[in-house]
């Protein structure tokens, strides 16, 4: 592999998402927060106090959706035969209009480009002790709505209501932001700087909706618009791989 073919300048394409404000395009960097709706943790109940957790998280729990996960509305998302289904977590992302580090909530508010409806899919997670990369980093598992909603369309605080329709059956879900968006982003930015076009997913609703191979889904986020996608059976290779992963 010679340096002339080397990926230094290779652009990694980001799914087409319209952004009518600086920086006019997404960077492709997507971080998310697990625990910004108090009901999410409450659902774990006493288990959160037992090993391995030994207590509720003291700070926002972050995860990354790497570039192989990014997909646009209309995607076909492969799920492995075992377990054969995804947890679909609708959420909303803060899109950064400019770089931020060690920012105050006011500085964050001035830097928001807009809000993006996102469907964050993962294979079922039995535990949150380890980062669950083999569940969360599946190809196409971060579906982005087609357009970033303008900053004025959401206050960044309070309740976000979603409707998740799977094969025609609708489930309402909502996300109650324990930390408002600006406060959450400011806290994370104390040690992790954000770039223009980055996304910070603002939390997970208390529970997901299950979606299996062969099912289509639509996520509606009120003023945030809608996205849809389809889950398909993952095509396994014919030859033995020499490795296994769930």
């Amino acid at each position, binding site marked *: 592999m010679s340096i002339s073919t080397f990926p230094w300048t290779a652009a990694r394409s980001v799914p087409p998402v319209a952004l009518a404000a600086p920086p006019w395009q997404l960077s492709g*960097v997507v971080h998310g927060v697990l625990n910004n709706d108090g009901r999410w943790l409450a659902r774990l109940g006493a288990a959160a106090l037992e090993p391995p957790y030994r207590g509720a998280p003291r700070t926002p729990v972050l995860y990354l959706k790497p570039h192989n996960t990014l997909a646009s509305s209309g995607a076909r998302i492969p799920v492995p035969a075992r377990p054969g289904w995804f947890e679909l977590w609708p959420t909303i992302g803060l899109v950064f209009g400019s770089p931020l580090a060690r920012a105050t909530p006011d500085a964050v508010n001035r830097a928001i480009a807009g809000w993006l409806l996102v469907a964050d899919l993962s294979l079922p997670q039995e535990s949150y002790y380890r980062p669950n990369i083999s569940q969360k980093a599946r190809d196409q598992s971060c579906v982005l709505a087609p357009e970033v909603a303008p900053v004025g369309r959401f206050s960044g605080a309070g309740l976000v209501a979603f409707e998740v329709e799977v094969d025609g059956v609708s489930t309402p879900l909502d996300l109650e932001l324990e930390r408002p968006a600006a406060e959450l982003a400011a806290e994370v930015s104390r040690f992790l700087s954000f770039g223009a076009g980055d996304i910070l997913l603002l939390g997970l609703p208390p529970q997901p909706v299950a979606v299996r191979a062969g099912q289509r889904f639509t996520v509606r986020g009120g003023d945030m618009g809608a996205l849809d996608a389809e889950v398909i059976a993952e095509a396994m290779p014919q030859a033995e791989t020499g490795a296994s992963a769930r």
Partner: protein
Amino acid sequence: MRTARVGYAGRIHDAVWHPDGVELTDGRVVGEADVVWLPPFAVGTVIALGLNYAAHRRELQSELAVAQEEPLVFLKGPNTVLGHRGFTRRPAGAKMMHFECELAVVIGRGGRFIPVRDALEHVAGYTVCNDYAVRDALENWYRPNARAKNRDGATVLGPYLVSADEVSDPQALDLRTRVNGRIVQEGSTADMVTGVAELIAYLSAFMTLAPGDVILTGTPEGVSNVVAGDEVVCEIDGVGSLLNTLMDDRDSEFAVKG
């Protein structure tokens, strides 16, 4: 080939190793200290392994709450990446921030379901990584969590990308860390629990790997605290010597008690 990316005289250059420093594409030879070192490749997804050396697992044994069945994998974002001869902010008030000398494997040809027997053909090359950790920030949710591992400047990469053809066996490399000139960590990639080819097969079984994605393959025992002003050199025989200096960060969240 040993290739680098450096900033010099107003632009970013491709460069190759030279006995007197680096040689830019246009032939100019510039001293190592006279350029700004970037990571030697366009960094895609950073996939890091924890507990991938047997002795280091024993070192942290008391912290292991559950048995280890699969490789422990976590991701680091682009905010963390830093080049050779850079400065990483060391949060004032944190009691334990330690280096981790790691062999970094850079993907050249991507793929999914890569068989172990083909895996090394997918490697563009190797570089050195120092995968810092701030243990004070560790929590038991998605552990090792971002506040411990994903801090700005916590993933030091370089100096050179050594092409795969120059590393005949990635499982036969001695590595060490020096702090202020004294060796504090030593090991060999022979002691990896899951080797490079197996890691590529394991990861590509559940996610598509792309050119520029990089696997940080873990660190042996011997990690220890470093403080502001320390010069940390992570060295892997045949791959390179990566220098990083800690600088004091009085503005860190650990400095605020409450």
